[in-house]
Structure formats: structure tokens, C-alpha cells
């Protein structure tokens, strides 16, 4: 360890999210959520929205709090909250809409009842699987995967000198791969992709791709990017002096140069807006929506080590938003 590595700037190394992801401590948020739901429950003639959490915790509670806060005050909804991981079975009957938080809740809800299901905090791959399982049931989904174009715009802004961008995909993630190739060209990058069947192929694939590409885009795929592979991916990429664009704040803290991501609050807010749009839950659109609200995190230490001059996270977010507003 370098004993002189202490002079780094305060901002360096700590990702710079455009907003803090959680405004309140988890405990407070739970209380707020509880109070909010209790007050909504008082209305007895309203349509019932059953929120099923896969596993209550900081992430899913933040979603619930933002969802509750985002519902239009004029509409009288009856909110009920349940947890899959609790000791009691979850009673679904009577619910006019099920909001399933997390993949486990979404799977259970999509297969276990007739009410329309709005699934959130799930991946695109999960949403695709759910849709095949849901049959004729109404199923709306808000995924955590950012639009590929948004991720590639971030790539362009963070590594403006890069000409070639690469990404790794699991063997079943063909849709994302074609999206990557298509959108990379839209932002002026030459894409190179590879598909791998298991983790054992990851090392060789990284060596091959990193030698000829100037940026690695981590596309959400649990088969490839997980806590077990992070060490190897980030160290190998750094060895090739290739920046990694991540998909979560944690990945930026770990060593990705930047990421575009949505916090649970952002998805909760979007879910509430979707509910507010509807006059009848039975008409829930069978759609998979990408995140509307997003944040940027930048790792200054890594960008400096790679000799890249990155903008402030907020400036990058603004630049992407203005590009997205353009027709």
C-alpha cells in the first residue's frame, strides 16, 4: 500500500451522485411509509392497491415510500402492504392492482392471482420472463435497466476519445446485445460484443475485448457482472487502462468510472405516476417501461488514474437529459 496515497481530493473516490439516493435514514423511512399507508387505508370505498415486497429492506422500503408519496392526493386508493418474506401468507384476493416490488414478488404475483400486476425493481430479463409467465393477465413493468442509448450517451460523455466500445452478454441476453450494437452506432461508437456461456470464459473474453476497445460497457446481466466477478473485471480493465461504465452506484464505488442508474425512489415515483395515469386498473397497459428518472455517479479517482477528464455528475446528467429532450 502506498503510504502517500492520502493526498487525494475529498471529492475523489467518492462517487458523485446527482442527488443523495436516500434522503432519510431507513428507520425513519419505514415509519413514514407506515404512517402514509395507514392514512390511505382510512378511505374504505377506494380501489385497493396491494404492494407486495419481495424482501422489505432499505431498497424496497424506499420504493414504497416514494410510491405512496407520489400518488395523487385526489384519488382515493386503499393501500395494503405485504411481504413475501414475512411469516404469514400474503392474501391477494380483493386487490384491484398488485404492485410487486422485486423479482420474487413479481413472479409470485404474476402467476398467483388474477389482479393486474405492476412489477417494479426488476431487471429487463426478468420482465421478459414474467411476460411469458403472466399469460393473459395484465402486466406492467418498470425495469431497472437504463435505456441503452442513455448508457451509451454517458459513455460518449465520459470517454469522448473512445472510438470502439465493447460489452459482454450472457448467452440468453440477445435482445440487449442487438440494442447495444444499434445504439453504439447512433452515438458514433464502433461496437464489439461477445457472448459467454459461463464465468470461466470471462477472463479470455476480457483479454480479447480490452485489447482493441477503449471502453467497456457493463450491461446488467447477473451472469457476468456480480460481486464475484467485479474484482477480476475491474482489475483487468484497469490493467488495459480501459474505463468501465457501470450500471449501479455500487459499481462506481468499486471502480467503474461512471454509471447511470435509478434509485428505488426514482422507480417508486415513476410507478406512482403510472398509477395516477390510470382511471381503471383493469386497463393497465401491458408495457415494459424503462426508467424515466435517473442519476449519474462518477468516480474521480479512477478517471484521474486513467487520465480522463470527466465532467461533474450533474453536468453529465443535464447533458443527457437535454439530448433526450431533443426530437
Amino acid at each position, binding site marked *: *500500500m502506498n*503510504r*502517500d*496515497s*492520502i*493526498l*487525494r481530493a*475529498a471529492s*475523489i*473516490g*467518492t462517487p458523485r451522485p446527482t442527488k443523495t439516493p436516500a434522503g432519510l435514514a431507513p428507520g425513519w423511512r*419505514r415509519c413514514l411509509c407506515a404512517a402514509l399507508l*395507514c392514512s390511505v387505508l382510512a378511505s374504505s370505498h377506494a380501489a385497493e392497491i396491494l404492494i407486495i415486497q*419481495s*424482501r422489505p429492506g432499505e*431498497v424496497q422500503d424506499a420504493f414504497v415510500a416514494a410510491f405512496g408519496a407520489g400518488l395523487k392526493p385526489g384519488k382515493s386508493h386503499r393501500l*395494503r*402492504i405485504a*411481504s*413475501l*418474506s*414475512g*411469516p*404469514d401468507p*400474503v*392474501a*391477494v*384476493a*380483493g386487490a384491484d392492482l398488485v404492485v410487486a416490488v*422485486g*423479482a*420474487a414478488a413479481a413472479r*409470485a404475483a404474476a402467476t*398467483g392471482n388474477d389482479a393486474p400486476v405492476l412489477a417494479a425493481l426488476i431487471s429487463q430479463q426478468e420482465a421478459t420472463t414474467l411476460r411469458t409467465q403472466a399469460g393473459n393477465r395484465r402486466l406492467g413493468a418498470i425495469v*431497472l435497466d437504463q435505456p441503452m442509448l442513455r448508457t451509451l450517451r454517458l459513455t460518449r460523455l465520459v470517454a469522448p476519445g473512445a472510438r470502439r466500445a465493447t460489452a459482454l452478454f450472457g448467452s440468453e441476453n440477445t435482445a440487449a446485445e442487438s440494442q447495444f450494437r444499434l445504439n453504439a452506432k447512433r452515438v458514433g461508437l464502433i461496437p464489439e460484443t461477445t457472448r459467454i456461456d459461463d464465468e470461466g470464459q470471462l*477472463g*479470455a473474453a*476480457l*483479454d*480479447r475485448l*480490452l485489447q482493441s476497445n477503449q471502453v467497456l460497457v457493463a450491461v*446488467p446481466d*447477473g451472469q457476468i457482472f456480480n*460481486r*464475484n*466477478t*467485479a*474484482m*477480476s473485471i475491474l*482489475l483487468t480493465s484497469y490493467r488495459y487502462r480501459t474505463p468501465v461504465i457501470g*450500471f*449501479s452506484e*455500487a459499481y462506481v*464505488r*468499486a*471502480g467503474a468510472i461512471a454509471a447511470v442508474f435509478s434509485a428505488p425512489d426514482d422507480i417508486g415515483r415513476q410507478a406512482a405516476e403510472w398509477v395516477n395515469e390510470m382511471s381503471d386498473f383493469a386497463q393497465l397497459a401491458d408495457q415494459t417501461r424503462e426508467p424515466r428518472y435517473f442519476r449519474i455517479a462518477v468516480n474521480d*479517482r479512477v478517471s484521474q488514474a486513467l*487520465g*480522463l*477528464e470527466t465532467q461533474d455528475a450533474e453536468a453529465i446528467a443535464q447533458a443527457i437529459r437535454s439530448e433526450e429532450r431533443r426530437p
Partner: protein
Amino acid sequence: MQPCRAPRAARTAMCLAALSMPLAVVAADDAMFFEAVPLVLTASRLPQAAADAPAPITVIDRQLIDDSGFTELHDLLRLVPGFMVADWAGGSPTVANHGLGDAYGRRLKVMIDGRTVNNPFWGNVDWQDLPLRVDDVERIEVVRGPNGAAYGANAFQGVINIITRSARTESGTAVTLRAGHREANEVAARLSGPRTEALAWRISASRRTADNFMPYEGESGEKIERSVANLQIAIQPTLRDELHLQAGATTGFNLSGVVGSLSDPFGKTRIGRNYLQLGWTRTLGPESELSLQYHHQDRSERKSWAIPFRGIDIPTDLDLDSRRDDLELQFTQRLSPAWHILLGAGLRHDAVKSQRYFTANDDFGGTQWQLFSSVTWRPSERLAVNLGGNLEHHYFSGKLFSPRAAVNYRLDHYASLRASTGISYRAPQAWESRSFETVGEGGRVLAIGYWAALPLQPERVRFVELGFAGRIATLSLDLDARVFREAYDNYIDDQACRFASGNCGFAAPPGYVGAPPSYSGTLNKSYVFYFGNNGAVTTTGAEFRADWRKPGWGRVVLSQAFVNIENTGLPGQDIDLEASAPDSMTSLLIAAELPAGWRASLGFYHATRMKWLNDGDVIPSHGRTDLKLSRRFGKTGRESEFALTLQSLEGDYADFHEGNYLHESGVLASLKLAW
């Protein structure tokens, strides 16, 4: 949530079983987006950014190592501004910074992955024995000035930290074959485990031979052979913890010396070296970490016990054994956006044994401890103030405190001005403090070599420097420049003193005792080498480094140092000190990417006239140009490569001692196959 739990449905409820989903599935949904990931590129894993460092830093990265064409570690330091490198036949190559270099370069602290590898007896570095091949190096971070505040005594003229490639960045197998001028042959193999497993490992082994010097007019030649085996294991038991194990061994021999010489008899010296390093690191944040590291290393020299001298064989014990055990605890923490702190403690035990050098069969050395700390305060975005200090108790020098103060002022995001000042020490080594080197037969002493008869003070340097480090992103250019002043005193000199006249090569130090009475009449050599604090010099100079790289084209790295040394001590001190650095040193490396996997690089190294001290001598102004041509082939990313390097296109040049050693031009071919 309990107060709001909905009443259990009395209706015909369709119930979702609470535990119908296994936990692993639950963790697999949003986990990917929200799960904690181990912090990988933390401050300690990234090279120090020159613009943020409180000291002048040069990083020799992997690309530069490849382009240089150098296959020996010490040669890579030719790329560092102000660094001087030489080789001689009587021992290891030697490296110094800004002068004061001699056969046993001991004023630089050298580490491999944080493990100090300086020899406990000479204080120098046995570059040829290090259980490490150039191919295994990820990068070398060099502090180009005194840094006792961070690393303690002996980080005197600089610190060299060699960082090896992580087992997590390699997989597969590689075999390297190398053949060159004067039997410089090498065969090496590396085998790495899958890099995505929680346990990453690498085994490497190599065997190398070289005729470094041919015997010439009574001067020693040097032929070496080394076999090296190395094991690296990294385990990640939790997201925050990592355990490291490294172990290695070197065996081989040096064939050197002069027939009939008492001090350097011709023969084969067998070398054995082992090390074990264990480390635990807990990552507490991107800039916060706790680490505990232990290492053991030992080294042995075994040489023929019979010195042929004037027709008879004199049985003499020429063995030299040393060992070191070292434990270090270090804690870094960002306390707030403005404050960062580093705290550490170390404990080390050194032991050296040599009948020849101590005329005793005891261990010499001792236990030393150190406490170090560094605090950085950033009162504004632009300004950083660093205060550091190292308090230690050295077994030869007692308590020493090395302080440093540095101020960095950011001009923009990637450029800063730096001013730093401080004091560093060099504690005398075992041979300077305790040696009484004798060669004899039975009880009859024929010659005395080194004799540490006088108590010594540690060498001291007080330094001040002003520097600029930054990056011009639009030009892809990194710049580093500084001016410095280093005032040395208590310089430890070793000079021949003649018994008969009392004449030393320098003013006889107080306490000079002449020939030991008990040996009078038996000595075949009329002088000894005494050590004394005898010299003070002030070194001033300027140096810069420009590093320009363009993907698809290549890279140009230019380093330049101007050094001036002035004697500031008492009359009678060695006047050669003033000549111990070239006035000007230049290195230029140009690398070009060519089509079809070809790459060409040209290295030019030039130094004006200088004098290596003690066993060394004058080296006239000389230049050396190396040319490397390489081609990568096979599966992309697997790094199979063929390379041809032409060294010293200008022809032979004098090395270390103009009259004694010539560095010949040569050709080196290598083939690396990886799969």
C-alpha cells in the same frame, strides 16, 4: 409495518406462500442493481496520481516496461529522471539517485508489493536474486526523493515500489524463451487459475543464465545462473476482506572473483533466497483501509572455503547469511471531505551472520520498531497540506524522527504545484556498523578488509523542492517538473587506511587506531577499509518528464535531469563526491504501433561524465540506444509475442569503472507463447 398489517383475509384468499421463493432467487432480482460490490480500485490499488502526491513520483507502467525492451529490473530505473544505474562484476548491479552511488547502492528503499527487499547486511538490493521476473511486474512506482517520513530510515534518496501483476488479472498459461548475447538465456513459465474464482492463484518459474562480464586483465568476470519459483494466492473471504499469500525461492550461483585475490577470490558463490509474505486487507471505503502484513525473507551465500594464495590453499569461511522478519499494521481513513489520516506501526528483526565479515559466529542485527503517520488537510478545493512523520528505533542508530511537510496547490483538475520539505536519515548497515572482515588461516590473520572500528552517526538529508505535476488532456500529455535542493551530512565514507603511515584516503577520523597490535607481523595487506562520517554535500538540480501517448500511434516519454553536487563538509573529505552524478542525464523512449500487430520502440539513454564512488571510477560521457521490434500474434488478448531487441547500437560503453568494465552491445530475442 406491524401496525398497518392488513387483516388476514377471511375471504377465499389466494395465498402466496411466504417462503415459496428460495433466498437465492430473491437475492438475484434487484440485487444486481443494488447489491454491494467489493471496492476494487481503491486508493491503495491505483498508482499515486503525481498531481496529488506530497512527493515527486514517477510511475513506470506495463506498457513502458514492454517498450523499453529491458529484461532486468534494475535497468528499468534508467527511465526515471535523476536515477543512475550501473553494473559491475563483484556484486549486484547498483542504483542511485542524484549521485553518491557506489558498488553497494543502499540509499534507495526497494519494495516488492510493500515488502522491503534491501539486503540487511549491505543495505543494497540483490537485483539479480529477486524472486521476480520483469514480465511479472505490473508497474513500478518511484518516489524520486527522500521519503523517510513515509517509509523510515533508508528511504533516503528515494523509494522504489515494484507492484506485481495481480493473479486476478491473468489466466491461462504462458511460456517464454529468451536468448541473447553472452549466454543471456532464459526460460520461464507461468500458470494462472481462473480469475473469477474467490481464490485466485498464479505459479511461475524461470531459469536464467548470463555471462555478465568476461574476465579481463586481472579483473573479475561474472557468470550467473538463477532459478526462481513463485506462488501467489489471493482469497476474498468476504466483500471487504482479502487475504494474500506470496512465497518464492531463488537458487543459483555467481562465478566471479580473481585467482589469487584474498578479498575477492575466484570461485562459485551459491545463492539461496526464500521469502514468505502474508497479508490481510480490510477495505473500509474507497480511501479507508486496514491492512496487516507479515513477511519473512532469508538469503544465503555459500562460497568455496579454500582460497588459493601463494601456492597454498587457505581454508576460509566465506558464507554470508541474512534473514528478516517484518510485521506491519497500517490504517487509513478519510475522516471528512477535508481530512484524511494514515497511521501505522511496524516491527522488524534483522539478523546477519558471517564468519568472514564479522570474524565471529554470532548474529548481528537487532529489532527495530517504527510508528508513522500522515495527515492531509484540504481547506479548499485547491489547497492540500500534508504533514507526515516517522518515529523509529533502529538497532544501530537509536531513535530517529523523519518529518515532512508538503503543500499542493491545484491549478486545475489535473495539475498542481507542490512544495515540500523534510528530513530523512540513513541508518548505517551491518557492514558499516559491525564488520571486522578478516581472511586468515587458523589463528593467523592475513588480511583485514572492512573494519567498523568507529561509532557512526546516521546519514542525514534535509531537502526542499518545488514541483509541478499535471496533465494536459487536450494533448494527451503528462508533465512532471521540479527543482530540488538536498543537503546531505554525516556521509558515511569507507576509505583505505594504511597502518604504517596512518595515511587514510581521507583525513584520519578521530579514533583512528592503526593496525591491531595482535595482528602485526602476520598481515599480508598493509591497509584496511575504515568507515567514518566524513562528508557533507549539497545537491541541487532540476528534472522533468514528459509523457505523450496517442492510442493507435504510440508513445513518447522524455526524461531529463540536471544535477550539481557541491562539497560543503570539512576540508579533506572525498572530493569525488562532487563528481558522483552526471551534470545531465537524459532518457527518451519512442514507441510506435505498427500494422499487423507489430510494434517498434527506441530507447535512448545518455549521461555526461561522472564518477562512481569507492570500487567504481570515472565513466565518460556516453549514450546508449536500444531498439526493440515486436509482433503479437495468436489469439487476441493472449499476448503471444516475438521480440528482437538490439542493445547499445552505438557499441560498447564503459560501465561503473572505465578501466575495468565494459558494457557490450548485444542482441536479445524472445518468444512468448500464451494460451
